[in-house]
């Protein structure tokens, strides 16, 4: 009996030593206490290699959990990740309010121009209202072109456009087979939709669809294998292309016809063979001319893209009879300074004169030079451009007829067939 007891006590000591060894084997927890929350989190125990997502969101300030959710104390991957918002993308519109919202951040602010979540939720990029209304009108499901439906329900109490709400579009409740097919095939390019398969369509949903450029299309280097941890306002045209230059809808078969090539020459590879382009349109990035309101919405529900898109050639170039609208920066709190701070490609100073749109949005990457010409810095490329106003040139186009098609008449570049 004593012998058995000796062996058993030896075994007990061995298992205890084994327990000791096992608990000393795990990763050494690495603590981070973000200054914003003051609550310790241990995500960087495993994710030490993730870079700051942007200069405005340094990890030491925000930590990880503020945006991503998750169990901040857990050292087990499954548990730690179990309550993450939106999987790897907390900006997905289903969770964006919890991740990016709040009156200190990107929603609930008095000022419309800081209320980004409400703007995006109501913008045509997430409602898809124009396309839905057009298709329903075309196939007889509604008698006007007004927007009644969006991808999901949205409301706007302080509407400037007269549209106070959109009901969620439900293809299953439509009777026309073409509209049903539209529902199945054509709802892949709004901000709530997962992208189509293929590298050329690679983008996230929600804010990250535009602000987290996916490699290999972006100019920046991606982090990790196919993962990206970047938020930027320097958005290259390639990011816009993940939706806007990837094919075309065939209304007869109600399918999306994907293009099978990759654009290398921007001028030659645009998918609309009949489209015309001036030099700016294939040299600049989309965001160099198109404004925040156009891309993200202005807080009101719009019936279609046309109702929100308003920047034209004349915004920068003026007309034969008028110079472009400009503004001299006298207020240090002018939003132009904030935008230039977020993407510091220009060194904007008080007293500088910049071009503004007819709605008063600053084209903060432009400047009026002393000799009456203008300069523009590419937001994504940092390229320097100078240009002259139309006024004083040989252009004889009427100031009343200024849509881009008139400009294309003379200034479009001949494309290779």
């Amino acid at each position: 009996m004593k012998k058995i007891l000796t062996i058993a006590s030896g075994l007990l000591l061995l298992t205890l030593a084994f327990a000791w060894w096992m608990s000393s084997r795990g990763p050494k927890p690495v603590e981070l206490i973000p200054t914003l929350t003051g609550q310790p989190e241990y995500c960087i125990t495993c994710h030490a290699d993730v870079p700051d997502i942007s200069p405005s969101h340094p990890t030491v300030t925000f930590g990880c959990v503020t945006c991503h959710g998750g169990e901040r104390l857990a050292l087990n991957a499954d548990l730690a990740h179990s309550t993450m918002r939106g999987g790897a993308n907390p900006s997905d519109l289903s969770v964006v309010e919890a991740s990016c919202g709040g009156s200190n951040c990107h929603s609930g602010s008095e000022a419309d121009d800081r209320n980004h979540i409400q703007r995006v939720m109501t913008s045509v990029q997430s409602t898809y209202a124009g396309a839905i209304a057009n298709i329903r009108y075309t196939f007889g499901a509604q008698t006007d072109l007004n927007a009644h439906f969006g991808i999901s329900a949205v409301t706007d109490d302080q509407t400037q456009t007269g549209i106070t709400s959109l009901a969620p579009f439900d293809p299953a409740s439509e009777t026309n087979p073409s509209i049903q097919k539209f529902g199945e095939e054509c709802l892949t390019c709004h901000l709530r939709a997962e992208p189509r398969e293929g590298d050329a369509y690679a983008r996230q949903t929600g804010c990250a669809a535009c602000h987290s450029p996916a490699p290999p299309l972006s100019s920046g280097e991606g982090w990790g294998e196919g993962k990206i941890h970047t938020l930027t306002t320097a958005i290259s045209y390639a990011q816009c292309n993940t939706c806007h230059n990837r094919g075309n809808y065939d209304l007869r078969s109600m399918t999306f016809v994907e293009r099978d090539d990759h654009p290398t020459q921007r001028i030659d590879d645009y998918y609309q063979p009949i489209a015309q382009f001036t030099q700016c349109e294939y040299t600049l990035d989309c965001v160099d001319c198109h404004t925040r309101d156009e891309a993200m919405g202005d807080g009101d529900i719009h019936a279609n893209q046309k109702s929100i898109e308003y920047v034209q050639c004349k915004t920068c170039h003026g007309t034969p009879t008028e110079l472009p609208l400009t503004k001299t920066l006298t207020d240090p709190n002018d939003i132009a300074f904030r935008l230039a701070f977020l993407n510091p490609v220009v060194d904007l100073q008080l007293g500088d004169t910049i071009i503004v749109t007819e709605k008063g949005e600053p084209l903060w990457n432009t400047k009026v030079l002393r000799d009456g010409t203008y300069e523009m810095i590419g937001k994504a490329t940092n390229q320097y451009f100078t240009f002259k106003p139309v006024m004083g040139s040989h252009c004889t186009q009427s100031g009343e007829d200024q849509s881009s098609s008139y400009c294309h008449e003379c200034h479009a570049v001949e494309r290779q067939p």
Partner: protein
Amino acid sequence: MRPSFFHHLHPPTIPAVQSRWRHTLGAGGTAILLMLILGVTGILEMFYYVPNPQEAALSVQTITYHVPFGGFVRNLHYWSAQLLLIVSAIHLLRVVFTASYGRPRRFNYLLGLGVFVLAILLDFTGYILRWDEGICYPLVTGTNLLKTIPLIGDFLFRIAVGGGEACNTALLRFYTWHIFGLTIFVLILGVWHAFRVRRDGGIAVPPPQLRTDNERISRNELVRREVLQIFVVSIVLILMSIFLPAPIAAAMTGKPIVTEEARAPWFFLWVQQMLKWGDPFLFGVLIPFAVLTLTALIPYILPEPADADIGSWFPKSNRLAQIIIIAIALIVIVLTLMMVLT
């Protein structure tokens, strides 16, 4: 040599038959060991656990992942608690199958059953203390079952959980029940139970004139056997605690939500299965209570086992008791399996 304190807890000699492993399965002693481990590990956990709805689950994560050996101690606590229920059930079955509950042990049978019920309640309240997404079903369903009891239901609910919703006050109530209210009762009943084992003449064997084996062993030998059992159980427990982490889930945010997949703790799965069939008072309260009452009444309403049969496995003289307890065990196991497999 004068006996040490631990030796002194035992009689100088006992009949050899009383201490054979195949006679007792060591279940009662193992239960005491597990309770001691639960006490020690529980006290260690109390240094870090925060009984407050906002911090409870986070403090459990702190214990599990950040306190040195915290995860190991928590696993020991968890597995001791689960094993305690199994060992207690085996102990109860052994007592019935060896006809060991007859006079003068009838009252001690009730004491033991009381300890078993308290152990189940302790396990249940311990489950709730996690206060994470994994405990929503037992919390909501378990406490609402109390309310279904006619006349005194609301009163019992208030005693157990506190007023209003099973929410903020509930955690503090469960905490106090777990570490103090139930523990003090289990301590009193447990010590009383062990004391009565000795007072009733040790482990049940036939009276001296009916014994075939009159060999006796010293308490030194008895303690050695107990120590061996302690070592074996400890090794098993430590290995389980190393390789099988205790369940943990994300912190509960807002009110507990019961989903389709939510499960009761394993020892109440049989009740959860019955609750699918309808009336919660009948299936969730009356039937479990009837099962308990029937088990408790075995020594009182069934014929006394014959003296010669005491301590022998599956004797003829208490067949009916064996059949009843087997039927109860089978029904509980089948219902549990039905719940597990759906």
